[in-house]
């Protein structure tokens, strides 16, 4: 157990984890509840269409789901990287 990551690493890991989670939750909120519901009228009218679909409608039915998959992929990737940086990766 001598190579346990130090307390500093642990604290920094948690801080960075929280920052990442906050950013991703912000994106999550904007693409779904934001674009699909709260600002959809504005998106429908003022922004370019996706194919023939108004942007707000498309975000609500398709775009948000695609964004969710991307968010999770980014989360997985960033967390794995963070664990490597702070010394939590297995040294096998």
């Amino acid at each position: 157990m001598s190579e346990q990551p130090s307390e500093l690493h642990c604290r920094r890991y948690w801080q960075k984890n929280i920052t990442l989670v906050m950013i991703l939750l912000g994106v999550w909120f904007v693409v779904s509840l934001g674009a699909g519901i709260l600002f959809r009228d504005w998106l429908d009218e003022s922004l370019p269409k996706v194919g023939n679909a108004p942007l707000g409608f498309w975000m609500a039915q398709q775009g948000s789901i695609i964004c969710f998959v991307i968010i999770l992929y980014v989360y997985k990737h960033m967390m794995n990287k963070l664990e490597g940086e702070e010394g939590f990766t297995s040294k096998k």
Partner: protein
Amino acid sequence: MSQDYWNYIFIGLSFVLYIGIAVRSRAGSTKEYYTAGGGVSPLANGMATAADWMSAATFISMAGTIAISGYDASRFLMGWTGGFVLLTILMVPFLRKFGKATVPDFIGDRYYSKLARAVAVLCAIFICMTYIMGQMRGVGVVFSQLFGIGIPAGVATGAGIVFVYAGMGGMKGITYTQVAQYCVMAFAYTIPAIFIAIALTDNFIPQLGLIGDYTAGAKESIPFLTKINNINTELGFSEYTSGKMSKVNMFCITAALMCGTAGLPHVIVRFFTVKNVRAVRSSACWTLLFIAVIYLTAPTIGAFSRVNLIEKLNNTSYSEAPAWFKEFEETGQMAWVDKNNDGKIQYSGPAKSEAGTSSPFMGSKPVYPAYDAPKEQRIGIHGERLLAMKADMTNPNELWFGNDIMVMANPHMGGLPKWVIALLMAGCIAAALSTAAGLLLVLSTSISHDLMKKIIKPDLTDKEEVRYARIASFVALGVAAYFGINPPSAFIAKTVAFAFGLAASSFFPTLLMGIFSKKMNKEGAIAGMLAGISFTLGYIIYFQFLGGKPEQYLLGISPEGIGCIGMLLNFAVAFLVSSFTPAPPQEVVDMVESIRLPDNPNDEGDSAPPVVH
């Protein structure tokens, strides 16, 4: 070859596959029974979780709901997928690191209280039970249609099959069966969508067809969404892409579904089956990808089949109506009431009548005369099946169809080959069975592990515990089958939808505070849980069962969305109470510290979640 043979072949083959897998991977120990030994690969676990998540109701009715309510149905699409983001980044990595087998385990230990554990067990049992009843009903309906047996016999057959591989195989058995079931479901869902997309929009990717042009029939092609909006407004419905639900209500329902998803015990426990925290993240990523395949296809099926249905049926005389219309009339999923006696089927929406109604008859579901009634009471002058209830003459609409019909009728409407329809049947059964099996397992663990071992009889041995789990799953299945045969009227459908609100107002905040706040103590958590769930439950009961009127809604939020407010209440009460009461003991704070960190790199091979004694 007739349709029946194709059905038997496809469903028979899929069953042989499922049971074969279940027998090969049956569980030997409690560890394998609860969490498949913790050694399932992220990809396989992702598929299995996706199959678990897609219930018969989602598989069959979601596209139908989208077809009927257009934009408004986006709340389900966003709610049920968006919840996975919350689940993955806020919950499962930490709960997996905690390393015990169930969700009540975490709540009981984190809040160092048997009372908290007992409340959690009750919530878990309630949520799973309402779900599984609906699934058993679904299995029964499909089986009864397939083999021409009654619904009770259909439910009993389904229950028997679920018991064989969930009760016997445990988590390990069902995980690998669900992988096979996901594949069947994904093919069954997307292949008809592709055929229809080609027929209507000349594009073999349904998602591109939806935003592309409508090319069937018309002289010149117009955007598909313009076409469906035109159809809707001509017939007196609101525009497909606009919807009519208020913003605040839509927001609250979507948020409640999202947070509810992140608090559902049977989904959380799925992530205990993989090797370590790193694998949890990767597995969740796969799960959402597999779910997205189906959820991105659902809106296209909804929109295409709405256009197809209306083009094929509206203003068609009954004698010329396609054969499938008569088949669905026979099974009671479609009905026609010839109000103006012109022999033609007319379909119209609320805007076409002064009363603002669009129901063809009095009541919400068709009721037919008894089979032994005189012929003239059963069959009308055009050969149609007559209803036992009066026509609703306040509006001109003559056509009724159930939500389930869109997915099931889709291949018929598109004139697709018979094997596609058989594949769809098999997919439908796969959806119901996989969810029922997953729920059954959580239910049986809640009873054997959380209730028997942790609260009632702590000296249970490993072997006895598995035995209790099997007995519990047998009993639970019996109860579920009973309610599948005798559903307490509309109660089940309602409670399934409300289970999300309840999960959002109870489990979600409690788990979240347990992970992200070191100061949260047992008094705060229990008070918060009770405040959240009693407020939500009270609101639902008042408006659903005690006759509350929509005008009395708080801020215009319907009972479906109130879980969102219940959740905020839970947080508020929990923080308020915890600020007056003693802080949690040091060992709990240490535990919270430790679950926040990833696996210790020097521990040998990331141990599987131990079923600790």
